[in-house]
């Protein structure tokens, strides 16, 4: 199939691609319409929204964002924790968890893929078994263990909890290491480079694209996730948890749609900017092996 000058394929010669193009267009419309509606609504006042829930605002109320910012809070020991602290907590939570959930799978995937001891196959099998054998309902037990270890309501404890090699991050990084030949390390060994140096200065840089993609995906997931903070960090609520509570607020000042969706936009814009800056580095840098490794 011939390609156009911009690299895209000429879809008109394939009914399958034409269908795909319009299917994607339809999905884009269905996905973006409520988002666009929410964005426009976030600038309306209460009466304007009631009169005209679908059109543009009579007057653009940027102050809705300030109102949402002021009113997203989580009470901790009877005292409200407001946005600046929630943001700080979110940064601590998301950055720490991302580091742990990237570094631990990175090191484990490196060891399992590049050190061909029999035990390495066992480590890979552990990941696959944990992935395919579903253990359901371990949350109460995990809470108990976290309390017993003193990790409950402790940010370092949460970072440790998230520092697991189980999961897809390991599989992505394992596949990345698989595509890097060991000959580079052998050449360094001849030059008497230490194992640590080979790992950090030769092998890790060669999978840096996959590491970046994994880290970015993890950061987005942790920034957005609220249940861990809700369950394990009662004294350190995050923005995401603040927003979750915000939707159930019954204060008159904020319990109407434009303010609520302004809160949603506040939460989304920073991540959207981050994604737009780096999305090209996500695509094509992630692959995953199968159950057989």
């Amino acid at each position, binding site marked *: 199939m011939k390609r156009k000058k911009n690299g895209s394929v000429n879809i008109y010669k394939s009914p399958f691609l034409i269908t795909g193009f319009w299917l994607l267009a339809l*999905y884009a419309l269905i996905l973006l319409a409520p988002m666009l509606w929410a964005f426009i609504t976030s600038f309306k006042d209460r009466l304007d929204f009631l009169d005209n829930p679908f059109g543009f605002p009579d007057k653009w109320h940027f102050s809705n964002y300030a109102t949402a910012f002021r009113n997203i809070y989580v009470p901790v020991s009877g005292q409200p924790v407001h946005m600046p602290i929630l943001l700080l907590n979110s940064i601590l939570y998301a950055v720490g968890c991302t580091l742990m959930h990237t570094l631990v799978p990175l090191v484990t995937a490196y060891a399992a893929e590049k050190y061909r001891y029999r035990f390495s196959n066992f*480590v890979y099998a552990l990941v696959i078994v944990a992935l395919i054998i579903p253990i359901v309902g371990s949350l109460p037990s995990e809470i108990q263990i976290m309390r017993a270890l003193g990790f409950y309501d402790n940010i370092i404890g949460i970072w440790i909890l998230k520092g697991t090699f189980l999961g897809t991050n390991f599989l992505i990084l394992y596949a990345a290491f698989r595509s890097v030949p060991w000959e580079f390390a052998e050449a360094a060994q001849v030059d008497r480079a230490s194992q640590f140096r080979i790992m950090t200065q030769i092998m890790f840089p060669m999978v840096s694209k996959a590491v970046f993609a994994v880290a970015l995906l993890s950061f987005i997931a942790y920034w957005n996730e609220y249940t861990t903070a809700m369950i394990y960090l009662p004294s350190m609520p995050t923005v995401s948890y603040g927003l979750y509570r915000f939707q159930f607020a019954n204060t008159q000042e904020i319990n109407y749609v434009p303010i609520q969706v302004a809160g949603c936009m506040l939460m989304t814009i920073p*991540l959207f900017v981050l994604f737009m800056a780096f999305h090209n580095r996500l695509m094509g840098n992630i692959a995953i092996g199968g159950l057989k490794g």
Partner: protein
Amino acid sequence: MRARKLGGLKSSKRKRLIFYICLLAYPLAHYAVFYIGVNINSVLLAFKKFDGGEFSFLEASNFFANFSNFSGDLFKTSLLKYAAKNSLLMYGVSLLIVLPLNLMFSFFLYKKIPLKGFYRIVLFLPQIVSSIVMAMMFKYFVERGLPGLFSKFNIELPTLLTDVKTAFSTIIAYNIWAGFGTQIIIYSGAMSRISEELVESGKLDGMNMFQEFIRITLPLIYPTVSLFLVAGVAGIFTSQAALYNFFGDEAQANVSTLGYFLFVRVIGKSSTFNDYPYAAAAGLLFTAAALPITLGAKYLLDRFDPMRDAI
């Protein structure tokens, strides 16, 4: 000289082994505590009660009380019947609608259709936007926006998320609407690694795009797809279907799922430590049900692996 060389080789192998052990020490310690420890504790918890401020084992005569309480609830209360039915339905939707769409959308991106960059961002949006934000926008749109629009045409919409007739189908619609993201990246990444020569030879054999998708692309990314399929079976028992985002712990029984039921049982407003053993017992029974399904799915997927003979 030779002895010294041999000694050097041994020392280098020993250093390599020590380094390997150091690399794996923390991950395996973590695994021991947070996977093995947590799961063993979960099994034990299923046979305990919370009494006098601490957990203790149930009396021998009543040892399986948590299991019998749960199985009693399963057959007596409508909540769990709804939850089981909805969970299966939700899994069916993810298997029959979301997965094929994920694969096809990934293929269209891989084939670089026009506006690929735009569609790529759109398809990844549900991943960037927090699930709580997605749920809030969807909720306000269907409950406040759409009724306002329809009322202009004198059509009265029910409150889609709370009306018994429409609530669960609206939740399903939401889960399809917000069901794309990381899998698109992983599938299109896997597709981009397919050899160009293979695709070209398919074209020379007169394959059209749909045939290429079915005969070349899907078989070659089958390991990735089957991994997600096998891992996804547990979703029947764990998926909350975003109910907590919409309703907190106050979702109506008719929209509940098994994952939501267990989650709320542990962290709901009215939950106490007394609920932990019950939830652990329920989890154990779910695991016992999920295990054969998962292994069966894995067996079937291996059996029908299109590349099985090629390996």
